[in-house]
């Protein structure tokens, strides 16, 4: 098993954050979204394990992007 910190520090792994309950609520309300509409991410995903996210958590992923410089993506742990 790789050390979780090693994974998170890797250059190809984008920044993953767990959104707090209030953040999630606000985000869903502002964008009129439901949790079921989000793309999923496995509970078994190494990064998800490393940041200790649980089933149902909404993960905010900030990636480098060729077109936009930086792009934000959201996935829900299943």
């Amino acid at each position: 098993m790789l050390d979780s910190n090693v994974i998170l520090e890797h250059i190809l792994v984008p920044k993953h954050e767990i959104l707090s309950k209030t953040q999630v609520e606000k985000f869903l309300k502002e964008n009129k979204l439901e949790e079921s509409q989000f793309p999923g991410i496995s509970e078994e995903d190494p990064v998800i394990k490393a940041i200790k996210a649980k089933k149902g958590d909404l993960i905010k992923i900030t990636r480098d992007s060729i077109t936009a410089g930086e792009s934000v993506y959201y996935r829900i742990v299943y």
Partner: protein
Amino acid sequence: METITKKVASVEFGILNPEIIRKMSQIRIVIPDTYDEDGYPIEGGLMDLHLGVIDPGLRCKSCGARMVSCPGHFGHIELVRPVLHVGYIKMIYSLLKTTCSSCGRLLLPPNKLQTYKKIITEGELTDDQEIDIIAKAKKAGKCPHCDKKQEKIKLVKPITFYEGEKRLLPSDIRRRMELIPDKDLALLGIDPKKARPEWGVLTALPVPPATTRPSITLETGERSEDDLTHKLVDILRINQRLRDNISAGAPQLIIEDLWDLLQYHVTTYFNNEVSGIPPARHRSGRPLKTLAQRLKGKEGRFRYNLSGKRVNFSARTVISPDPNISINEVGVPKPIAKELTVPEKTTTWNMDRLKQYIRNTEYPMANYVIRPDGRRKKVTELNREELIEELEVGFVVERQLKNGDIVLFNRQPSLHRISMMCHIVKVLPGKTFRLHPTVCKPYNADFDGDEMNLHVLQTEEAKAEALALMLVQDQIISPRFGSPIIKGDEDLVSGGFLLTRKGVAFSKQIAEKMLIKADIKKMPKPDQGDKYSGKLLFSALLPPSLNLEYKSKLCQNCKECKKAKCPHDAYVKIKKGKLVNGIIDKVSLQGILLDTLFREYGPEEARKFLDNATRVLLATTMHIGFSVSVEDTMITKETHAEIEYMINDARQRTNELIKEYEEGKMKHIPGKTMKETLEDKIMAILGETRMNAGNTAAEHFDIANPIMIMSRVGARGSILNVTQMSATVGQQAVRGRRILRGYRHKSLPQFKEGNIGIEARGFVSSSLRDGLIPTEYFFHAMGGREALVDKGIRTAKSGYMQRRLINALQDLVVQKDETVRDSANNIVQFKYGEDGIDPMKCHGDSAVRLQTGVYLEDKDRDETTADEEGDYDD
């Protein structure tokens, strides 16, 4: 009409059981014949009136309806002896092997059966478990329930079974299948309620309705039966013979022979392409098209009839170019215009016009008149006056296609949204669709025999929508790159150069002749004495308020740009719609100028520019004259010698490298072997040599050399093409390496093994004009073939990938909030393209918000690497 809508909840498949076959049968068929001498269907025959009617005037004996309204009804044949159904051979084979020959139980020990049964009552078996059951049962040598020894079952393809040495007759097999208890079948993945295995051995054969296999009457009055009917006749005949022989007490051997024959006929009735069985043939020797053949393959019911829909109001023919029509137009041949129609609803305003169409006896005619009750009447010589008389508001007149009608034009493969665009009809003589040469690009069309499809829009809504969304002039900018895709290319670019280069001037007469092509009737004031400069004529094509400055393709990238005083005339300056400076070339006709016209002045203005530029520039080319001959590739003796010297020098340097390598003095590049290093270095030398030779040749050419003009200006060809024609063809490669194949350590027999000199490994030092020596020619062919094969493979592969991608992405929609969602409203991207920018609306460095259409400040946008155009042609 009231309609009942219901949703399909599920679909079930099972085996048709003989009881149902008999129940749904209207009549038992016994006579192997169809019609009697009078042409009347024989009762009890294959065209019995209970099976539905296919002759006009007769009534169905089952439902009483007449020809078209009777849907047809099934009959059946009672088979004297059971026969196997080819489609279930696999299932029967598996069941024979997994069940006991005497008690019919599944060959698994009782405890195992119990555990599996428990799983089944609670849920479903996994795939692995199912495979496991079958594999274990097949291995059992003895029945765990009745201790009977199990003989090995053999399937002699395609339809005979043996148990040990003994033949298993279909009746034996049926008995065996009957023995298998329902509860054991469930473990084998068979639902006994819907598919008892013995139903796979037929005792009764359904006879499809007469409507499924209509007989046709030939011109001679002779009747010709459908292939299925022929097959059913065969089955009935053998069935009867078998019955007669059995009742006459014929020997078992003869009965079995006939039985096998019946089996053959029933098998080929279902599928006439079973491997191992000779296909049943028609008298003419043509194999019969039986049930499976009706459904299978490209010409089968699925691909041909269900997936392959054909449309009305469409036409297809060869395309050819016409630079004199507008890019928005499509030239439609008159014969096609006469066939295609546009429906026009009669109002008080168009009544007279529509009446005129009906009255006309030639070209703009009306083909049909449709009354409000839906009755459609063809306009003929006889009823013309009558139709005019009764024409009222609300009637629809289908008139022939005429100039200005709106159509869709399409070329396959339709990979793009711009593979199908809206055009305006222009009826022309001839037999081909005429297309403006600049719209070849989006369709990827050329005129070497390409055909295209045309669809006539039938409703006002469709017309409005197509005109608003799909009109050619609105597609000038590619949604992929944000730069023009419909643009002046090839000859137009050459024409631009010829017209706008310095010192070109025309007399008033010629200038008028050229400008009238662009429909310009007011002559500008002559600027060269009483003559008109080319730049002045070109300016007439531009909107009067246009101001623009940019560097053209001819720009030499001087250290310090002298702008308007550019010695190469490569600095284009347009002031108040006048071309003051610079030569019009690729950059103008394909890039900045066209782009600016489209964005600042709108699609209409850009279209006008393209239409007019095409005409004027082609007129210029024709007036001045522009041609290429072999002579234009000629270089002087001195230049030739210079190039030869360069190649000799390269040879020498290569030999030195080889020597260095052989002596082991070479230093290898990190990550490469010594040999690879040597190859790299040699390739570099040869590549460099070709480049230098090419440049030397290019420098030598006159500025007016047409080949050089074309490549410099960006019309066609590159410096590489010039090099290959005039200087040297250069290194040929297979798999990205210098050539080495076919022989051991050498490329062709005459070379010494291990010779790695330049000639021995595919360097072609001759030019195409000089001609290649045989070895060079062969190397060139090798490289050429690889390129050709690769191209074929690449297009096939990328085409398939593209299809898969489009299938996966076709339902995705960019929503108002700039998210990309699928049809179930699931989010795929939180912002379209991660930046929410519409490339089609972007111009230069400024980005445009997709949905709002708002320009972003340059600083809001990160430096992007989006490639301006890429290589679209390849």
